[in-house]
């Protein structure tokens, strides 16, 4: 695969982020959560709600509310573009890239991308039943939970790359350190490798700390033209490149992998050349990484898939401290989905924005001009490269 021949088009930027608190029981409707996060992101960017003329969002089995509902709740003016997609964690980078292209075309000028759900107190994706298709063959034999599907890949990945529990554990430990500095994070108690290894297995190879923390909450980011972004209060996080990819025969649903040949390589391997090629940026230029981490193994697979680590070396990389704040590649600097909470990767994008803007506070990476973000764990997913305005 090669990148497109045209020069990088850097004409859109992320300019603001918004969050609700992440909790185990919000006591609020998803519409209220979504509206709160959207309004907060718009305000953070220094824009007015009346400036918003585009929205996009994603949901799994109708666990969220559509864009027009949020637009109505907030009393927005007219929307010139809208996109509600039935996707999970594959979506955030994809939707931001779509929004970037939308504002680049002039179809809208200010697009808000959000994810909102009562993912803890309401419908929990991790144990949701999906009707029909592949599920009818999986539920009767007790193979029906998301962590089992990703675990099936992890087991093969660890086997082929010669890695093991200490490598998974290093990811959990590294990210928990960041979470201690993140007031939004659900899991902030310290975690050391010994304690990790002492945790009982839930589904081999995963322990509790390998798994994301399901939460109630919402997160939103604002995309606009680079030209307009330069007039706003925070420095722009320029959208240098974006990419979605489903590898061949991605299956009937999230749990159907029987026709996927290689469980040790996910979508990151398939999109990396196009992602970096389009940005005109090399792996060695990346200064911050926010890798989708519903489970620890997807961080290792993502680091290797994107070419940020050589095959089989991601565990040693994380164990060396390279992903820490003073390491070579600060990674999942908000604690990630593992510790901050499972906003299905929308918060992964938001953390990258904060880092590139230099707003990471006590967890700010010292070098933060180029960040890579991913969305998704298995057959399909998306990614972004964000840069400082340079």
């Amino acid at each position, binding site marked *: 695969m090669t990148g497109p021949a045209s020069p990088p088009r850097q004409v859109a930027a992320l300019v603001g982020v918004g969050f609700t608190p992440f909790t185990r029981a919000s006591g609020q409707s998803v519409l209220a959560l979504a509206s709160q996060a959207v309004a907060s992101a718009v305000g953070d960017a220094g824009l007015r709600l009346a400036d918003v003329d585009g929205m996009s969002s994603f949901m799994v089995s109708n666990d969220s509310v559509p864009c027009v509902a949020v637009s109505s709740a907030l009393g927005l003016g007219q929307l010139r573009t809208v996109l509600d997609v039935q996707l999970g964690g594959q979506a955030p980078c994809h939707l931001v890239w779509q929004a970037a292209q939308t504002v680049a075309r002039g179809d809208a000028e200010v697009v808000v991308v959000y994810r909102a759900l009562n993912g803890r107190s309401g419908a929990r994706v*991790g*144990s*949701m*039943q999906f009707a029909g298709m592949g599920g009818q*063959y*999986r*539920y*009767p*034999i*007790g*193979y*029906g*939970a998301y*962590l*089992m599907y990703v*675990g*099936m*890949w992890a*087991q*093969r990945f660890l*086997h*082929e*790359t010669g890695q093991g529990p200490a490598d998974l554990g290093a990811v959990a430990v590294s990210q928990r350190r960041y979470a201690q500095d993140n007031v939004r994070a659900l899991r902030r108690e310290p975690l050391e490798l010994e304690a990790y290894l002492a945790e*009982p*297995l*839930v*589904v*081999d190879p995963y322990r509790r700390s390998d798994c994301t923390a399901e939460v109630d909450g919402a997160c939103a980011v604002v995309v606009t033209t680079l030209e307009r972004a330069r007039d706003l209060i925070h420095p722009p996080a320029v959208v240098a490149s974006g990419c979605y990819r489903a590898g061949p025969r991605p299956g009937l649903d999230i749990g159907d*992998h*029987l*026709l996927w040949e290689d*469980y*040790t390589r996910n979508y990151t391997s398939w999109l990396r050349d196009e992602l970096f090629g389009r940005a005109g940026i090399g792996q060695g230029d990346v200064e911050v990484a926010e890798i989708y981490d519903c489970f620890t193994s997807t961080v290792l697979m993502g680091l290797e898939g994107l070419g940020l680590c050589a*095959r*089989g070396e991601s565990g040693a990389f994380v164990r060396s401290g390279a992903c820490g704040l003073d390491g070579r590649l600060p990674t999942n600097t908000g604690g990630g989905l593992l510790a901050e909470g499972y906003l299905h990767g929308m918060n992964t994008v938001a953390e990258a924005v904060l880092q590139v803007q230099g707003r990471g506070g006590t967890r700010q990476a010292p070098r933060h001009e180029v960040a890579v973000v991913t969305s998704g764990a298995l057959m399909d997913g998306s990614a972004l490269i964000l840069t400082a305005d340079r």
Partner: protein
Amino acid sequence: MVESTGHGIVYSFVTAHVAVSPGYGGPLPYAVATVELAEGPRLLGRVEPPGPLAIGDRVVARFADHATWTELYFEPEAAPLPQSEGAHS
């Protein structure tokens, strides 16, 4: 269409120590494997009995009749294959 003898090796597997799969009420722990049949295609099934399992283990397909459906599951075979690594990175 591929006719299979039912023999295969474990491509990957998970062992559930906690009942995380919705609706599952069977014994714990239990193992589910992705099995690569000798003829090529892969199948998914429980491995029964669920003892220690490793990638590359040889298994053979069996059928069990339940009240309303018939289950295809796998049973470990005694002798491991000479090269049970299966690594082709």
